[in-house]
């Protein structure tokens, strides 16, 4: 089931949450919607589910206009962030719910429903929990039940809202691998919302990065990591260091900066901003360097170094055993070597809050 979203907008009481979303999800694809809170990702997911309605735009699933269908008629599996299991029903009854509420004519027989529930309990590896109530389950077990309940109706599309948001790290990793398997075995088109980058990149075929009601970039982990489409994505992907540079013959130049390792790029000369991740900066000892070490902490594996030129302080992450780490003491003078980074032409001036669709300067990144 392919999902085509076209120019979708939505506002809540005058505040725009979606400002024109175009997105196509191919049949059988696993797509992650990612972005900071308030970026509109959950709203978009709920619109696909039929739990919210857009102000304008189109939602077409496998040739059907879903905006004419109620949530009940879309046959989707929706997994809620806090599971939303029915507390007064056993695990079995929860999973069977979607089958038992069907109109009599299309409802499977009791034995058939029981068999389906058994099969799902096996598949989800929670066969021993069938007779428990949700209050008696751990978070990870509840999440499995929630997914089982969604899968029981054999949904055309599976939608998950922050599926692992409320779980601890170990359970998360476990369930992530497991969800990937479930997706591969059921082959259903799946969209999930997350604010966890690791989760998005590890699970999804494609990641959609959203910011402030717009899609900023669509791609896989490497593309988004190495070639952020906008300063927003660069920052979101952890490039917290922003250095003002001058572009000269495709190279970034600034005092105390060695950008020789960055490829030349076809961008006009002029002022620009270089976005760097702390781990992509190597301090190189230089007695006349512009920067000096203000602080250097070790966590055993890596050094967290604060470099300053008196006015700005930038953080740098360096493996403790890297050759450059030797002799990096407080006060040591260094210059910065950029290992990787993204360049964007400097904005002419601060942009006012956009009322209509405006773009971040989208000059080509590295």
């Amino acid at each position, binding site marked *: 089931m392919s999902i085509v979203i076209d120019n979708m907008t939505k506002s809540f009481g005058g505040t725009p949450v979606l400002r024109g979303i175009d997105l196509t999800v191919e049949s059988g694809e696993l797509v992650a919607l990612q972005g900071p809170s308030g970026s509109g990702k959950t709203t978009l997911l709920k619109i696909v589910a039929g*739990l919210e309605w857009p102000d304008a735009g189109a939602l077409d699933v496998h040739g059907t206009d879903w905006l004419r269908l109620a949530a009940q008629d*879309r046959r989707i599996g929706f997994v809620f962030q806090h599971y939303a299991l029915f507390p*007064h029903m056993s695990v079995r009854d929860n999973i069977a719910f979607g089958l038992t509420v069907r109109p009599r004519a299309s409802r499977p027989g009791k034995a058939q429903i029981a068999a389906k529930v058994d099969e799902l309990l096996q598949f989800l590896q929670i066969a021993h929990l069938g007779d*428990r*109530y949700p209050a008696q389950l751990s978070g990870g077990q509840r999440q499995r039940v929630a997914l089982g309940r*969604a899968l029981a*109706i054999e949904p055309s599309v599976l939608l998950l809202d922050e599926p692992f948001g409320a779980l601890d790290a170990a359970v998360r990793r476990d369930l992530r691998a497991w969800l990937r398997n479930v997706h591969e075995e059921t082959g259903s088109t799946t969209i999930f919302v997350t604010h966890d980058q690791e989760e998005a990149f590890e699970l999804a075929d494609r990641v959609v990065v959203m910011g402030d009601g717009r899609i900023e970039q669509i791609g896989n982990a490497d593309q988004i990591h190495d070639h952020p489409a906008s300063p927003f994505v660069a920052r979101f992907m952890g490039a917290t260091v922003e250095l003002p540079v001058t572009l000269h013959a495709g190279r970034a130049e600034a005092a105390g900066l060695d950008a020789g390792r960055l490829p030349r790029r076809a961008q006009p000369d002029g002022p620009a901003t270089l976005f760097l991740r702390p781990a992509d900066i190597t301090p190189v000892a230089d007695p006349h360097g512009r920067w000096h070490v203000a602080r250097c902490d070790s966590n055993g594996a890596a050094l967290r170094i604060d470099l300053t030129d008196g006015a700005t302080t930038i953080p740098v992450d360096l493996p403790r055993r890297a050759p450059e780490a030797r002799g990096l003491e407080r006060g040591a003078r260094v210059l910065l070597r950029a290992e990787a980074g993204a360049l964007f032409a400097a904005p002419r001036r601060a942009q006012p809050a956009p009322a209509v669709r405006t773009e971040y300067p989208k000059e080509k990144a590295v």
Partner: protein
Amino acid sequence: MSHRPIKPKRVLPGFSLSLGTTLLYVALVILLPVIALVLKGAEIGPGQFWSIVTAPRTLSALRVTVTAALVATIFNAFYGLLMAWVLTRYEFPGKRILDALMDVPFALPTAVAGISLTALYSANGWFGAPLQAAGIELVYTLGGVMLAMAFTSTPFVVRAIQPVLEDLDPALEQAAMTLGARPFAIFRRVVLPAILPAWLAGSTVAFARSLGEFGAVVFIAGNLPFKTEIAALLAYIRLEEYDYQGAAAIALVLLAFALILLVVSNLLQFRAARHLEASA
């Protein structure tokens, strides 16, 4: 260094003082009268107790009370549910006023309620006149007793369900929607089970209150023996006649009713909320 045992400091001091005060209050104000009543009843002796309670007038009063309370409670159970639903699920102008109005039966002295109801529904009252024309008489009939009981016990149901409905996670209903459940199925299978314990509790308290309602009923009922005389009034009449034993016997029956109701209500609630116990 001394080796006195360490006493943890409480945030609020005076546990023994506050518990002592509450227990003393419960003993004096709640338990003592009940015990006195039971003791008074015990003096009567089973034979006489039985003959008082099975006297035609007593039986009739008990029947009137229980029937009217039952009808009033059934009405309130549904009306209260509807009211709580409207107050929690919809936004409309005047909602806060309506919400505040729900407390009027609590706040109003019951005698005032009884007098107002009588005035409204009497043959020449605002409501009574058209009803009379339609052949319905409420004042001085069993219907009037039910009306007065329903009026005074409405808030119990509304106020019991309201907080539960407000706290009900909207995701539950959304989940049911995505699973294909139609509105009626969502209500019956998701919402109703969630509010059932509170609904039962509210209705039981409303019933207990109706059984004992006195002030509002006596004005509108006309208090005709064998017709509209309620048990609480009969007990009062016996007291006036210095027939303490008769009064105590009738009061004991009402007390037994109330206790049984409370036990049944708690059992039902416990059953309905069983699944919330987080025991593996």
